[in-house]
């Protein structure tokens, strides 16, 4: 006589879902409602951008006067006119912005990662105080240092060159990125560095062969944020670049405006639309790295 119990009936829910259960009507309604709400919010957020895009294709006399997104007349004139409007030359401005942005990215990556490695791994006198001092600079608004910086650069005869915009990036002056990388490097296992030391690696060797390859997500985040900040910066190029041939895209866009004269809004919107393309492209390429970098450093 078998005493074995009959096999327990497997609950229906645990069966493999060959025919997945249809969601209940209320869940379906809630899901649809949630998506409609999200789409509406997304539309609200994107509306200014879409309006700008739409305005960039409208004829000059229809730039304003409608909140609608569908242009009643379609023209590419704003792009054609805006690219070389008056004395403005956007091919030059895009190139200038790109050169400055690339140099700033390289500077920030190099200097901030070196500084971060020092703060995260090396022991030296006043390390904590110095790190607090670096972080303290985050509290200083840009406007507070604007004039002293300008006076300094003026004495160095750097006005009307890209040096004031680029050189500080090679001195680890962006404390946020130093902090970001310090946080990231602190998460790396020290054993890797210890093993490298046993193999005869010095600090620079450890930095170059161990730390940098493992810090790629944080470096990517630094690159992306530096690019966005530099590409969007208006005040710095406005103050330091006097010669219109050296202008960046943001200063060039400002060249369409004049509150006391005639502003060219159609070409402005066309060039503004083009100006955001590199940022969107860069973000799409580096999106995964950005999220990984931010998530793993605990900075949210």
């Amino acid at each position, binding site marked *: 006589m078998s005493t074995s119990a009959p096999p327990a009936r497997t609950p229906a829910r645990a069966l493999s879902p060959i025919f997945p259960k249809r969601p209940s009507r209320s869940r379906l309604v809630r899901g649809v409602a949630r998506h409609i709400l999200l789409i509406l919010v997304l539309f609200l957020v994107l509306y200014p951008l879409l309006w700008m895009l739409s305005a960039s294709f409208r004829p000059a006399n229809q730039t304003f006067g409608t909140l609608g997104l569908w242009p009643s007349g379609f023209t590419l004139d704003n792009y054609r006119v805006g690219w070389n409007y008056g004395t403005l030359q956007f091919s030059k401005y895009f190139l200038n912005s790109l050169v400055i942005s690339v140099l700033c990215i390289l500077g920030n990556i190099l200097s901030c990662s070196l500084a971060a490695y020092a703060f995260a791994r090396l022991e030296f006198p006043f390390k904590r105080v110095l790190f607090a001092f670096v972080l303290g600079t985050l509290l200083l608004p840009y406007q507070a240092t604007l004039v002293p910086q300008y006076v*300094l650069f003026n004495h160095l005869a750097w006005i009307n060159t890209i040096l004031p915009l680029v050189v500080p990036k090679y001195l680890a002056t962006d404390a946020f990125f130093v902090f970001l990388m310090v946080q990231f490097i602190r998460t790396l296992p020290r054993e890797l560095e210890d093993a490298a030391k046993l193999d005869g690696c010095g600090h620079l060797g450890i930095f170059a062969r161990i730390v940098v390859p493992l810090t790629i997500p944080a470096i990517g985040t630094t690159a992306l944020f530096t690019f966005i900040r530099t590409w969007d910066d208006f005040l710095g190029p406005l103050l330091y670049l006097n010669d219109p041939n050296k202008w960046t895209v943001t200063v060039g866009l400002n060249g369409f405006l004049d509150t006391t*004269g005639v502003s060219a809004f159609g070409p402005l919107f066309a060039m503004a639309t083009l100006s955001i393309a590199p940022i969107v492209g860069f973000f799409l390429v580096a999106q995964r790295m950005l999220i990984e970098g931010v998530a793993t450093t605990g900075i949210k």
Partner: protein
Amino acid sequence: MIATKYRQTRRQFGIAAGVAALTVVASACSGGTSVGGSSSQSASGKVEGAIRLSYWGSGKRVELTNGVSDLFTKANPGVKVTPEYTDFASYWNKLNVQATSGNMACVAQMQGRQLNDYASKGLLIDLEPLIQSGKIDVSQIPKNVLDTGRGTDGKLYEIPYGAAYDSIMINTTLAKQAGVGQPAADWTWDDFQAYVKKAQAGLPTGVKAVNLGGGLPNYFIEYVQAQGQKLFEGSKAVFPQQTLVDFWTMWESLRKGGLTTTAQEKAAEAPQTEQSFIANGKVLADNKPGNQLGQAQGALTGAKAGQQLTTVALPSGANTPGTVLFTSGFSIPKSCNNQATAAAYINFWVNDHDANMLFSSNNGADTNQKELQAQIDNPKLDPAVKHMLSLFKDIVAKNPPTVLYPPGYQANFETEFTRAYQQISLNGASIQNTAKAFIDNLNSALAAAA
């Protein structure tokens, strides 16, 4: 041994690099930046070498300014003029930073409302001696226009070359529809109120007779002038408190009577002329600079095809015109190292016939009366510009008052005035109390800025 030596070398290198860096910083900081600067080349020198020219503007104005500079360099071989320009708002941000480090351009554009912020700090040279020595000829500029370039100390710091003025911009199509036509040229503020009351009755739904103007500083400045009163004396606001109370009471009466845009609508109005209510057919009348007629008309044609705009002079008082001139001109900073060339450039700009015909009053009506007439007589001149110049000529003929704006005016009057009126129109604050608080705060701030 080798390692120790290597470490020592590295340390020495580090110390040397640190000392070098400190030396660079110290040498950079020890230059003794003189904000005012001292002229290394006086105005009596030769017209030669390079100068920087800074101004606000974009598009066509940049091309015209470059054209004038080209004419100047052609007339003065060996001279180079390097332009620096940006839009009006950014211009002052940049100029402020340049001024603090003694790096203003040799020819710096100024406006009466900001002039004394720089003149009172000793940044600009007195131009009177250059006029006396014949380096700058101002014989064709009317005295009351020239006086708008004076500081509160009476010295001349700016040679005005273009005069802007406010006007009442009227949608003539809507005015005709409402049965009011255009106001009389010599209308008063009482006529103004009667005009908008009558117009509102005949306007289509959703269109207001006038844009709410109680928070517009220029309206008030012009209202004070029409009462025959002074706005400032030295660094003190001297207009009676009752005048401000009367001004705000008038606007509140119009607003509450449904004759104006609402306070919320006015607060949300975009600053650009092209987006303004008058340029989109939403109001019949508004206070706008006379030189913005062309761009407002362009926007209105796009928004309400067929509607037409014109400008008329602001309401006046019994014996005093209500229009105030806002001049733009050129100054020379003390830090300029080529004052002779800067003076020659300003003189050329103001007096050269070809330069004036080329620039053609692009930044306010030409202050040189001979050149102004030549432009009005030019058959090729745009009708909107011709209208603007003719109206300016009429205004100057009435000898408009000169307003000297004290240091700190821009920072402490304009935004605060708008904010104070919003307290009344949006929050229901008492007109009496708000007027008193505004004047008290203004005088404290102006005294501090003096």
